[in-house]
């Protein structure tokens, strides 16, 4: 695994860990400051800048890290994430309509589904299908 792949994997893992931590804090009933929830959104431009910097300073490693197989796996992870988020939304909607789930809790479940592509990519990295 080259350094660009390693950084990419760390970013996926960091995002998954961040969302999982928020999810855990919410379900254990702890108060989450609003600023903490915005960290994820604030991190997005930094992730973009780090990736751009790697393409600029390490073009060869970046080409290898985002080769044909990795981009194909990324496409699959996004497709899988899309359908997983859609399924989560429909399940949450049904549970909210029958009164089993509170809308505020459903919101957290739907937020968590957005990190599924990252989790998919982490598995892909370790199973040799990305990076």
């Amino acid at each position, binding site marked *: 695994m*080259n350094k660009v*792949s390693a950084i990419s994997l760390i970013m996926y893992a960091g995002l998954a860990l961040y969302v999982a931590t928020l999810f855990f804090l919410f379900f254990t009933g702890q108060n989450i400051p609003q600023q903490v929830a915005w960290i994820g959104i604030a991190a997005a431009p930094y992730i973009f800048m780090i990736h751009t910097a790697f393409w600029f300073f390490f073009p*060869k490693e970046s*080409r*290898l*890290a985002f*080769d*044909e*197989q*990795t981009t*194909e796996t990324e496409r699959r992870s996004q497709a899988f994430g899309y359908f997983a988020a859609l399924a989560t939304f429909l399940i949450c909607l049904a549970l909210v309509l029958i009164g089993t789930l509170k809308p505020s809790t459903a919101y957290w479940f739907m937020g968590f589904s957005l990190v599924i592509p990252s989790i998919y990519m982490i598995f892909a990295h370790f199973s*040799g*299908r*990305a*990076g």
Partner: protein
Amino acid sequence: MRLKNALKNLRKDANLTQQQLGDLVEVSRKTINTVENRVFYPSTFLSLKLAKALNVKVEDIFWLADSAESPEP
């Protein structure tokens, strides 16, 4: 029909490691490994690059087999 390949044998004949072949065609070692193990099917572009790197024809690397038991061409 199944797509089979002789990439592993041809790579070994050329005395190349997966990493060295990956460097030649600008993909990662993992990609070479998954192509050899038929987990990932490469594009036409990558297939042509592999053929060029190994100095063989694309048909020498990849071929269609009627069953898993079909021999190499």
